[in-house]
């Protein structure tokens, strides 16, 4: 699977990004060209990571898919609909680096929030929240307040919330960026389990190479200023990845491949070291 032109995209594609450019503050002195001519097709069931140096526009690309911002040119399709239509129909869930839990709501009520906005009945919401808590293994914490939970647990609640409406697509912006290494690896395994169980397509922004390689079946490497896709690397570590996978030669091989792709993307115009965490 690689980059396909818009003419080949089909309605069943999860995400189609077609020749998208994004320029902030266009025509002003502080104009920034964040993305240039980006094309990307994501199939249902894919786990795609966007990786690149700071300021390469990977978060911008994610926000474009989420329709939180609109592209300067080009188009974005989600589930065969325009991105804004997909947003209105809540076709995707979203998770950020900050868990973004509402501190005045219980854990359960936080998970119910997207369902409230969809107009679900109270009993139906409560039932779904209970299911989601089970999925992220926090069944005993439904009536707790967010601040009573550890950072990793809060992030699990945020993931449960983003999946509560059973969206086919999950958009994640460095969700584990603020967690310590141990919690982070545990959360990665959890995320794979949850996504496999719920058959969700994931677009995952990260700046950690091992994280991208471990989680994804495709790693999208981006270059900075203006952000563009320089390479897409397929990864196949098998469906039953576990802690041992992290010590295998294929895992290291892919890490090296991604790192070299990043370095190549970087050295084309800016000969600087890169963050290779």
């Amino acid at each position: 699977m690689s980059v396909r032109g818009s003419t080949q995209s089909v309605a069943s594609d999860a995400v189609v990004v077609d020749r998208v450019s994004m320029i902030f503050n266009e025509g002003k002195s502080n104009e920034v060209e964040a993305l240039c001519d980006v094309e990307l097709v994501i199939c249902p069931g894919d786990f795609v990571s966007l990786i690149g140096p700071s300021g390469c526009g990977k978060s911008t690309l994610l926000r474009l898919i989420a329709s939180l911002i609109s592209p300067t040119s080009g188009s974005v399709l989600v589930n065969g609909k325009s991105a804004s239509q997909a947003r209105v129909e809540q076709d995707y869930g979203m998770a950020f680096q900050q868990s973004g839990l509402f501190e005045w709501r219980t854990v359960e009520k936080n998970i119910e929030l997207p369902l409230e906005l969809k107009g679900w009945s109270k009993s139906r919401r409560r039932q779904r929240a209970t299911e989601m808590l089970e999925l992220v293994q926090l069944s005993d914490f439904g009536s707790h307040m967010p601040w009573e939970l550890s950072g990793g647990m809060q992030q699990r609640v945020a993931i449960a919330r983003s999946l509560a409406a059973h969206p086919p697509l999950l958009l994640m912006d460095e969700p584990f960026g603020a967690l310590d290494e141990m919690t982070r690896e545990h959360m990665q395994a959890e995320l794979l389990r949850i996504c496999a169980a719920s058959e969700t397509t994931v677009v995952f922004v990260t700046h950690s190479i091992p994280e991208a390689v471990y989680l994804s079946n495709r790693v999208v490497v981006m270059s900075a200023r203006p952000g563009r896709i320089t390479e897409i690397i397929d990864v196949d570590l098998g469906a039953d990845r576990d802690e041992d996978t992290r010590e295998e030669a294929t895992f290291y091989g892919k890490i090296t491949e991604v790192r070299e792709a990043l370095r190549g993307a970087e050295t084309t115009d800016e000969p600087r070291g890169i963050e290779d965490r």
Partner: protein
Amino acid sequence: MTFGKIIRAVGPPLVFGAIFLGIWQLIVEVFDIAPFLLPAPSAIWSEFLDRSDDIIDATLVTGANALVGLLFGVVFGIAMSFVLMRYQVANELVTPLAVALNAIPIIVLVPVFNNMFSSTSEVPRRLMVTLIVFFIVMVNVAKGLRQVSATHLELLHSYAASPREILVKARIPNAVPYLFTALKIAAPAAVITAFVAEYFGGRQNGLGYSITSNAAASRNAASWAYVIGACALGLIFYLVAVGLEKAVSPSQPQGSTQQPTGGLTPGGVSA
């Protein structure tokens, strides 16, 4: 809170207060200080007992002024904060004004208000309290309505939430702690304002008038006895505000969330 915790919290200041009063009493007796200079605590206390009925009446008068002004100020302040949140123009017009008022002792407007109403009216004092409370509540609640976390806003946009839904799900709950911060500042400020407003004339029935008139007649101990009433009134208002906060918002560990710290106090009431 257990009994032991209450003792530990209240004990030290009580002991300190008792020691302070003891030293005060001792100094007055040892140096034989004239009562019109500094009355002894024992003298103040006996005046307090003698005049307790009158002190309670005066406290109720001043307290009613503070309470009425506080309620009106809170209602108008909350209403105005919604206007400021909704209309950026209003925010740009009013907020600098509120900040400017911070530097002006607007309590000096009381004589002007007194001229506007009849001399037996409580309205000028209540109006003054309303004005002071209004700005404190407006500035703080507007801040709470506006300063919603960026992640919360992005999340709600990703759910395609309407502005009204964002108001109900994020802005209003976010402003609640700000309202209580404002109340904790506004409640004592209401008492101080009601009290000081009596210094500028009007009806002669409240605590402020009683203190000045007794002081003018060199009945210092009596003046101080009314001060006890004033202290009690301020404390009651503050404790009710704290109690309301405890009752409404669930207990949180200190510093865990973005609770507002401190607040803007326009009005220049620092008496």
